[in-house]
């Protein structure tokens, strides 16, 4: 029998928030890749569509005065980020149902470290896919390098953060992981087709063109397209004209509205999470 003595004679210490978060991230990733079917679905479907659609339009059609493939590329970067909602909702609802969050809360990990680690794990595949799409664009589509890499980075990270937080926020309203997939899927399709990802908002029915601009996915796509193509796709997203070119600072200024909208969505998600998120299905908080 092993002699076990507690750390009374030496000060036990907390590891710090980042160490806890990283530990949770590693655990979440390990579990994510253990379910290979779900993990590969999350890799192959978004990446297949993200590469397939621009490739099919490249050199054939022009959208808003730009090569179809190149126009779609930043939109598809937004689409792969939307997939984060799937990953995070799935893990949040299934771990809650299996009482795993309850167990994790019994560890020294702060609640915020558990959720951030989970969100990072649910986002990392999508962020890597954005990079893969960027390389694909440069190599296969002959797309230019991103006009404003910093704004692109801000758009990707803020978008990932928003979608992950939104997923955590709504997970408390969803019953089980199995049912949640069926509930979330229509909203993901809505975001895919109504956010300017695969076709411009100007091609949508007129009465929908303004409301859909408030979707978080629309804001992400506007920022990414403006940052990547160096043209103002954010000030008037519903225009059918080729937007005018914008410089480094101008592109940030043009994107103030979608950046603000994403911050608002973050606020909404925090509110939803605070009100509805459950660590334990048997308890109200």
């Amino acid at each position, binding site marked *: 029998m092993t002699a076990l003595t507690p750390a009374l004679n030496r000060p036990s210490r907390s590891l710090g928030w980042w160490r806890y978060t990283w530990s949770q991230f590693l655990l979440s990733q390990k*579990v994510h890749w253990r379910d290979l079917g779900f993990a590969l679905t999350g890799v192959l479907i978004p990446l297949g569509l993200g590469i397939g659609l621009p490739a099919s339009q490249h050199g054939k059609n022009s959208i808003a005065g730009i090569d179809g493939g190149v126009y779609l590329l930043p939109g598809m970067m937004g689409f792969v980020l939307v997939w984060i909602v799937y990953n995070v909702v799935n893990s949040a609802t299934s771990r809650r149902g299996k009482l795993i969050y309850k167990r994790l809360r019994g560890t020294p990990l702060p609640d915020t470290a558990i959720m951030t680690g989970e969100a990072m794990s649910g986002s990392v595949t999508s962020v890597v896919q954005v990079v893969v799409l960027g390389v694909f664009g440069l190599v296969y589509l002959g797309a230019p390098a991103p006009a404003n890499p910093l704004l692109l980075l801000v758009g990707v990270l803020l978008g990932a953060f928003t979608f992950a937080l939104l997923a955590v926020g709504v997970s408390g309203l969803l019953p089980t992981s199995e049912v949640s997939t069926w509930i979330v899927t229509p909203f993901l399709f809505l975001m895919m087709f109504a956010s300017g990802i695969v076709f411009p908002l100007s091609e949508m029915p007129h009465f929908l063109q303004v409301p859909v601009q408030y979707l978080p996915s629309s804001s992400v796509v506007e920022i990414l397209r403006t940052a990547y193509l160096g043209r103002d796709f954010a000030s008037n997203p519903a225009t059918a004209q080729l937007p005018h070119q914008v410089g480094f600072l101008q592109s940030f200024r043009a994107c103030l509205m979608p950046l603000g909208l994403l911050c608002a969505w973050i606020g909404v998600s925090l509110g939803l999470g605070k009100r509805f998120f459950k660590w334990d299905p048997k308890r109200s908080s």
Partner: protein
Amino acid sequence: MGSTPIIQVDELRVRYGGFAAVQGISFSVRPGEVFGLLGTNGAGKTSTMDVLEGFRRPGGGSARVFGVDPFADRERIAHRMGIMLQEAGFFDDLTVTETVRAWRRFTADPLGLDEALELVDLGKVAHTRVGKLSGGERRRLDLALAVLGRPELLFLDEPTTGLDPQARRRTWAVLENMVAGGMAILLTTHYMEEAQYLADQVAIMDRGRIVRHGSVAEVIGADHGSTITFSSDVPVPVEVAGVAEDGRHHELTSVDPQADLRRLIGWADDAGARLRDLEVRRNSLEDVFLRVAGDEDEAALTAAGKER
């Protein structure tokens, strides 16, 4: 034992809406002490644990763990506590080793992997997926994860439920060893034998209140120390041995078994009666618990009857 309590609870109250789950309880736990919180289902044990583990804000009174508010300052003290919940899930697709490795990353100075597995005798299933473990093995893995960080305070909620008697004894030995090293334990259990074996102090809760509190010896002693049982073919007068439910088998609780036995045997000699299966035994915690629970049930029924 140190003099400063690790846990200090004063007039603690917990409410769920209109239901008062805990109604003003007080106790303390010192380093190296095992405190058994006993009670029937719904007595308020888990609600009390929830507050002390920092998952729930008290509805009234105060609870201090390591001298701080466990709810407000949970992050400051969480690394000093180990928690074994009554019911919590595992990642079923991970092996035992992978699970322990992941949990080791959550603590600054964890037990070694082999050390942890040996501690709970899970070495043979180290590479088995957690989903394939038996209930008892999962419970032992539970314990291993709770003590990985060598906590100063361990919360155990029904730690040996589902374990066979051998594994239960082994778990007790592990816990005894840890307590000898200075660890304090707050234990809830339905096994009175377990509480009697492990606990220095016990509190029996009923409907949100502590109805007995003290060392195991004090609690047993306060509730009449012994039980005398026998059967007799000759009717025994009520003043000698009370009333036998079936007219033959008698059970007396006795504060002074020597005097009671003298009276009983004197009557038997005079009456020419033969006392069969005569037995005197010291009461156990289970006897006290059953009596307390029974008394309280009776009191509740009487009160309910009066209200009608």
